């Protein structure tokens, strides 16, 4: 994993845990293989939308501006932001 992707993954982890904290959930370790939905992470689709908004606010990037791009794992999302 590149240094940029690692930094983005760290940022994703921070934002995910901020959202979880707002919901009263315990912090979790986020890795590149962490699945956002339908896995053990207590995350729903609106949490994911909130994460995307937060990431845009921090990075100034919107990888979805030109259309939806498929991702399921934290590492895949980091790669999308690195690609913008």
């Amino acid at each position, binding site marked *: 994993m590149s240094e940029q992707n690692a930094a983005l993954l760290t940022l994703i982890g921070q934002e995910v845990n901020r959202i979880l904290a707002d919901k009263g959930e315990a912090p979790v370790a986020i890795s590149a293989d962490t699945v956002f939905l339908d896995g053990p992470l207590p995350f729903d689709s*609106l949490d994911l939308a909130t994460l995307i908004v937060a990431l845009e606010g921090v990075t100034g990037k919107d990888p979805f501006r030109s259309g939806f791009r498929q991702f399921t794992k934290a590492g895949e999302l980091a790669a999308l932001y690195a690609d913008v």
Partner: protein
Amino acid sequence: MKRHVIVTGGSRGLGLAIVTSLLDAGYRVSTCSRSLGDALPPLLEAHGDDLFWHQADIGDAASTEGFIQAAIAKLGVPWGLINNAGIAREGILATLPLVEVDRLIQTNLTGSIQTARAVLRQMLARGGGGRIINISSIIGQRGYTGLAAYAATKAGLDGLTRALAREVGRRRITVNSVAPGYLDTEMSGTLSAGQRDQIVRRTPLGRLGTAADVVPAILFLLGDGAAFITGQTLTIDGGIGC
């Protein structure tokens, strides 16, 4: 702390009545229109920082985005959004130019979806809570000769209301429609005297509605008392649809 509500199309007609009533009720209001008009300047003078106006055309995506961003920068993340901006184009569909159909859809439907999307992103980032009210129309429910494309956009708004209510309800954001009947505003000025008489005859309450008949429902839906009401269309039509 006064709650901030964004109202699109607030320079005249129902939109202006909504803006005025919200200010009187203690809300801070951001509104937009293609031109400032005659009624907003004195309101801006009287209400100072509680009222923000921005020139915008809701039929234009970049202009709409600029308004929403400016409103949030000025008065903060909104508690509520009232999608009021709309246009009407009368004409038999077979001869209505496609460019007019596109304009109707862009302003009445796409523009409202865009504002809802932009405001929802902010509401979600804040942790939830909020109100979205779409001003649809009885025309979207019952139809009216010469208003097929307009009716489609207003029915679309009601569909948006129901779907979005399901989508964001778990974040305590409610989404409802208010569907006025035939109102005595500039937009109904194109009705002929015969059409107006026919509408009045068919209305159990025996008159056209006014903006003052509609605004109280909007104030109610914005308030804490309406926290458990979502996905609904409240028709305010003097009974013509019953």
